[in-house]
């Protein structure tokens, strides 16, 4: 501590230790907040159409378009250490070649990023939408209300297909809700498979099994006929 440089080095050195300890405490503080998320999801209108994976493709595949209704309460996932929560809905169905139903296919049909107000500036949206988003939580450091989702007859973001390209008349398809909590400091946590301290499993979040219909006939062809 005898000269300026040594003092600067010592202060900075101990600062890094303090920063690490505080970060560890913040990460650990997540465990003190109970999580009890719940979700309900049901498939609405389901159709299967023929399409191409991209414009120049000669291969025709079957795509399922699954509209769904979801109500979810993920508000307990939002604490001071939450940066953003990623929510997604997937459709899964048993593999036709497996007899015990162990192997299954799963494809995402819809997803969304929900930011905590502390991370609003990271959203990749236009200036007008950004202004609206920031304004929606003005003066709030956390906004658990953003975790309450109510989607009615939501159009899927992604039309799904299977590696075989065949998807029509598939039975036992279920929709599942998943989430991923991304904290400012600490580990990422996904939809839990086990209960841990105050962190409960996602209540509900799986729809009733439904069947995909046969391929929808082209309307234009009907008109010509």
């Amino acid at each position, binding site marked *: *501590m*005898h*000269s*300026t440089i040594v*003092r*600067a080095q*010592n*202060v*900075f050195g*101990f*600062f890094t230790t*303090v*920063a690490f*300890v*505080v970060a560890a*405490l*913040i990460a650990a*503080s997540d465990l003190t907040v109970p999580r009890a998320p719940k979700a309900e999801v049901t498939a609405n209108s389901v159709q299967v159409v023929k399409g191409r994976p991209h414009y120049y493709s000669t291969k025709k595949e079957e795509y399922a378009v699954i509209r769904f209704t979801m109500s979810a309460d993920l508000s307990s996932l939002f*604490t*001071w*250490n939450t940066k953003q929560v990623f929510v997604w809905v997937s459709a899964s169905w048993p593999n036709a070649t497996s007899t015990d139903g162990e192997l299954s296919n799963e494809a995402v049909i819809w997803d969304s990023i929900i930011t905590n107000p*502390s991370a609003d500036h990271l959203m990749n949206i236009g200036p007008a939408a950004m202004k609206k988003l920031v304004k929606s939580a003005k003066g709030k*450091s*956390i906004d658990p209300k953003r975790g309450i989702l109510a989607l009615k007859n939501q159009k899927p973001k992604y039309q799904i297909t299977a590696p075989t390209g065949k998807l029509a008349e598939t039975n036992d398809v279920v929709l599942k809700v998943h989430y991923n909590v991304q904290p*400012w400091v600490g580990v990422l946590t996904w939809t839990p498979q086990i209960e841990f301290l105050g962190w409960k499993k996602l209540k509900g979040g799986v729809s009733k099994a439904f069947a995909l219909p046969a391929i929808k006939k082209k309307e234009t062809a009907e008109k010509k006929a």
Partner: protein
Amino acid sequence: MADQILDQIRDVAEGQIDFEGQRFTEFLSTALLSLVGALSFIIGFIKQDIKLALMIGLGGTALTMFIIVPPWPFFNRHPVKWLPAGGVDKSSSEGITVDGKVVG
């Protein structure tokens, strides 16, 4: 002349403080940084605001740097009292003794 100026600049840049000051800065830097860390966590947790915690942590560290790093006169209040040079008696401290005779 130039040497004197250079020496002065070197002294200012080096910023030495006395032994008591060194002990005190050691204690003060540890205490201040620990306090800042504790405050940033506690206030952030109570207010549920991670940006506030970050700002308290960084601001407090900047303040600590400002207090500790420059050689404030406060850290130089106990200058070392050196013994007179070479174990020479006070009685013969005037002049230089060579072969038992006082020269100069």
